[in-house]
């Protein structure tokens, strides 16, 4: 679905949800996305036991273990989602060298409450700032486990705006970078 942004640029928006999330195509259109990728179908979770070792080009590495994420980044996975609270300079440098995308799952904000939500926003904004300093592309995805945690493209832009991305760069992340992440090579 093609949506006109306020600045007048024609943009298509993409999202990525968890494999447990079930939704129909009419909901995707109502939410304003061209495609909603499903983890396990469109993108492989490289941190899980079900990872396909042969297809690192279509994988996203998940985890909080820095050694594992470093190994995945060196093998050239498409994206890395850091679930731990650390920000490792070496990992970010390896990600930049290998052209990895930093994936920020926004369900950490929408699915939590109170002080946990605040801590997650702080951690994500620090990660975002560190990544943009090194010019690493950042993808904002909802990573919804159920339909309850899915968001429209406008809500994704505002959530990205909360994580200190300004609106135009948030829209760029959700359209261009998410497209790279969701579309199979």
């Amino acid at each position: 679905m093609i949506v006109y942004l306020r600045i007048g640029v024609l943009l298509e928006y993409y999202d990525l949800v968890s494999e447990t999330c079930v939704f129909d195509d009419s909901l995707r259109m109502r939410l304003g996305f061209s495609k909603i990728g499903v983890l396990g179908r469109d993108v492989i979770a490289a941190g899980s036991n079900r990872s396909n070792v042969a297809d690192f080009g279509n994988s996203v590495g998940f985890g909080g273990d820095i050694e594992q994420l470093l190994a995945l980044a060196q093998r050239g996975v498409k994206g890395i989602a850091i679930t731990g609270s650390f920000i490792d300079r070496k990992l970010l440098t390896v990600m930049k060298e290998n052209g990895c995308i930093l994936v920020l799952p926004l369900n950490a904000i929408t699915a939590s409450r109170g002080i946990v939500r605040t801590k997650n926003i702080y951690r994500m904004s620090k990660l975002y700032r560190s990544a943009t300093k090194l010019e690493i592309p950042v993808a904002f995805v909802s990573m919804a486990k159920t339909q309850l945690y899915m968001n429209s493209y406008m809500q994704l832009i505002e959530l990205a705006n909360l994580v200190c991305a300004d609106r135009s760069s948030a829209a760029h992340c959700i359209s261009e970078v998410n497209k790279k992440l969701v579309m199979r090579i």
Partner: protein
Amino acid sequence: MMRDKQRYVLVEAYPDADGYTETFWNQLSDELLRCIGETNYHITNPKFVKFVGKNTFIIRTTVPGAAQVILSLALIKNLNGKEIAFYTLKTSGTIRALLGREKTKNKA
């Protein structure tokens, strides 16, 4: 008297908005107040307009406060102990444009 410009937001509730009663909006505005904060709520000034479908309704807000309302609706996942999600489908300056009605082409 100068009137402030308004922004209308089309919202879909999932799984359902649980009736069309006034208590639904009271509960939702309480949650919006919690998310936006007491010091910023007057900037957004959200008001319920009407239901336009089974689960779809319109909220009126100020132009500078529209982004805050959209964000807050993304964060609300529980209403009165019941799981619920709100999807912001569209925003517009008029209700007519929001509902996608075609303007009359031949004006006299």
